[in-house]
């Protein structure tokens, strides 16, 4: 297997508002391989978006990447640690959009209503390429064509509010691809869309990925989308990656009780008609009050009193690529603190 193009190690991103500390990302690790698709999955609020924003260093204040490594491999083989760059530096800005494109969760409000989509596309092109206005406009039209927007020559002068949700999300993808990045982060690109449009957008991402050998990080809370799109999966719970591995292993031999619960909660066509959908017991703890020990233990059916509520489990390697963070497997956990 080739070296990862992006490797995140023990990423920690906290928000420190006056009321306390939100440990949005608390030691997340995963790898992304060239041309591959990494699915990051987890319930709402588990830190998926903050992880993605940490990679680009665009976490909103008072959020801050506190520690960890975000290793981006350049075309020439050199490696930069994005966690160490000053987010305001030109070097970081060149990476945003230039190396890593980002498609956001909300296509409705992610485009400015005061400028045409062509204006915003041309801006994205010209930030990373020395081209004339005319060439940039031509490029904007091509990008709209690439993402399957009909009549791109006219649509380039449209405003975002004149487009449907599906078209807007296509424009967002075009924007993310404007400077031909090698990595695309798609943060729940289909959550706000209806089912048919969802399928079209996912098809589009896959098609472009094949054409350009893009590496994709696909963030979702939909296991069905993961099954369809991803080749590797990272399951997140409360800021930690609790299990990661190839998509087959995750679906057919899930180890972590949380992954198992997540999979049970997918509605299946094979399930008995009228059988109740399994849900995960309990609810996500308040962001200011994270549980001691393993973050999942209050909701875990297999939690061991005196162990899971005291110590943070370490990562156990089950095989070359399958890892899990749970005391049920491998070494006993090290004492927390």
């Amino acid at each position, binding site marked *: 297997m080739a070296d990862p193009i992006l490797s995140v190690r023990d990423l920690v991103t906290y928000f420190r508002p006056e009321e306390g500390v939100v440990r949005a990302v608390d030691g997340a690790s995963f790898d992304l391989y060239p041309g591959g698709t990494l699915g990051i999955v987890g319930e709402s609020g588990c830190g998926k978006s903050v992880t993605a924003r940490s990679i680009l260093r*665009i976490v909103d204040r008072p959020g801050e990447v506190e520690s960890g490594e975000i290793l981006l491999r350049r075309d020439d083989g050199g490696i930069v640690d994005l966690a160490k760059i000053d987010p305001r530096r030109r070097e970081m800005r060149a990476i945003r959009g230039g190396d890593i494109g980002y498609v956001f969760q909300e296509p409705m409000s992610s485009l400015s209503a*005061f400028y045409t989509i062509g204006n915003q596309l041309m801006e994205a092109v010209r930030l990373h390429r020395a081209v004339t206005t005319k060439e940039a406009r031509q490029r904007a039209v091509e990008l709209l064509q690439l993402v399957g927007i009909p009549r791109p020559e006219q649509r380039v002068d449209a*405003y975002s509010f004149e487009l449907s949700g599906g078209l807007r999300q296509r424009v967002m993808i075009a924007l*993310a691809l404007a400077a031909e990045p090698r990595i695309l982060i798609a943060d729940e690109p289909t959550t706000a869309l209806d089912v048919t449009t969802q399928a079209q957008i996912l098809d589009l991402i896959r098609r472009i990925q094949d054409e350009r050998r893009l590496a994709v990080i696909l963030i979702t809370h939909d296991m069905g989308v993961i099954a369809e799109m991803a080749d590797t999966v990272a399951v997140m719970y409360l800021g930690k990656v609790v299990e990661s591995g190839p998509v087959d292993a995750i679906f057919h031999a899930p180890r972590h009780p949380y992954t198992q619960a997540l999979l049970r909660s997918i509605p299946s066509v094979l399930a008995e008609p009228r059988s109740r959908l399994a849900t995960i017991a309990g609810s996500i703890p308040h962001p200011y009050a994270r549980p001691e020990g393993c973050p999942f233990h209050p909701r875990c059916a297999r939690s061991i009193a005196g162990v899971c509520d005291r110590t943070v489990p370490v990562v156990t390697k089950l095989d070359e690529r399958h890892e899990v963070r749970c005391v049920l497997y491998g070494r006993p956990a090290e004492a927390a603190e």
Partner: protein
Amino acid sequence: MLAYILRRLWLGLVTVVAISIVSFVIIQLPPGDFVDAYISNLSASGSMVSQQEAQSLRQQYGLDRPVWVQYGKWMTKVIQGDFGMSMEWGRPVTEVIGDRLWLTIVVSIAAIILTWGIALPIGIFSAVRQYSIPDYAFTFVGFAGLAVPNFLLALIIMYFGFTLFDLKIGGLFSAEYQLAPWSYGKVGDLIAHLPLPALVLSLAGTAQLIRIMRANLLDELRRPYVTTARARGLAEWRVVLKYPVRAALNPFASTIGYLLPFVVSGSIVVSLVLSLPTVGPLLLRALIAQDMFLAGTIVLLLGVLTVIGTFLSDLILMWIDPRIRAGMHE
């Protein structure tokens, strides 16, 4: 689009008529009339006016007729461009107002430009650096600016301007230009006198505008399109200026219409203190003397200016906000 503009114009006209009626009625509201005020004024200085004289004065000005007849007569003349005689000054209203209307507009516009020029950059800075020390400092100064009465500020600035900087204070013209006809020299003299009154008049508005701009921008800075702009590699200051500031400025276009009357009515006391030849002090005097035609004309002109201002801000809004343009095509 044209239909929209025409409808706006028609609405503006209706508003002007309504303003003229309301202003006329309000001016009539206080007990007594101009002649009463005139008589009591004269008796205060020792002279007497006979019953007969008073009666003939009333007849002369039509004060013995019902209110609506007076209004009708006044409006008929106004439409012909004749605003009537000022009772107190004994001269045509247009002559009494003279340059004052234009000077008022000039002073107000200077004050408005100054307000925006000071408030917008500070508002932007305060929002982008929310809760920083300068943000707190501007907030403090801003509230102080709101709390201190303008005329007091005028006196303080006049004092320091005169003692420390030898500024031209008081009035809008030097003595030699006061009564001179318009010339380049007079215009230059006006420009030299303008900064001080403009500054004093702008301060309360500045404090308010800083708060509004800061709140608007804080709202916009949280929106996803800001993060999107950052994510494509745009430098932070360009992100802020191009997208959220643009959106935060939008609501201001709709306030342009109200600025002028706001500045004029807010400026009466300041104009007295600084002895500015604007319509504010004139209006005050006309109201006290119940000089109906003069006061009515000034209020009417201010109303017309407001309507024009509102119409202009509608046009500006149409020009700068694509959503409104799009809404009109449908």
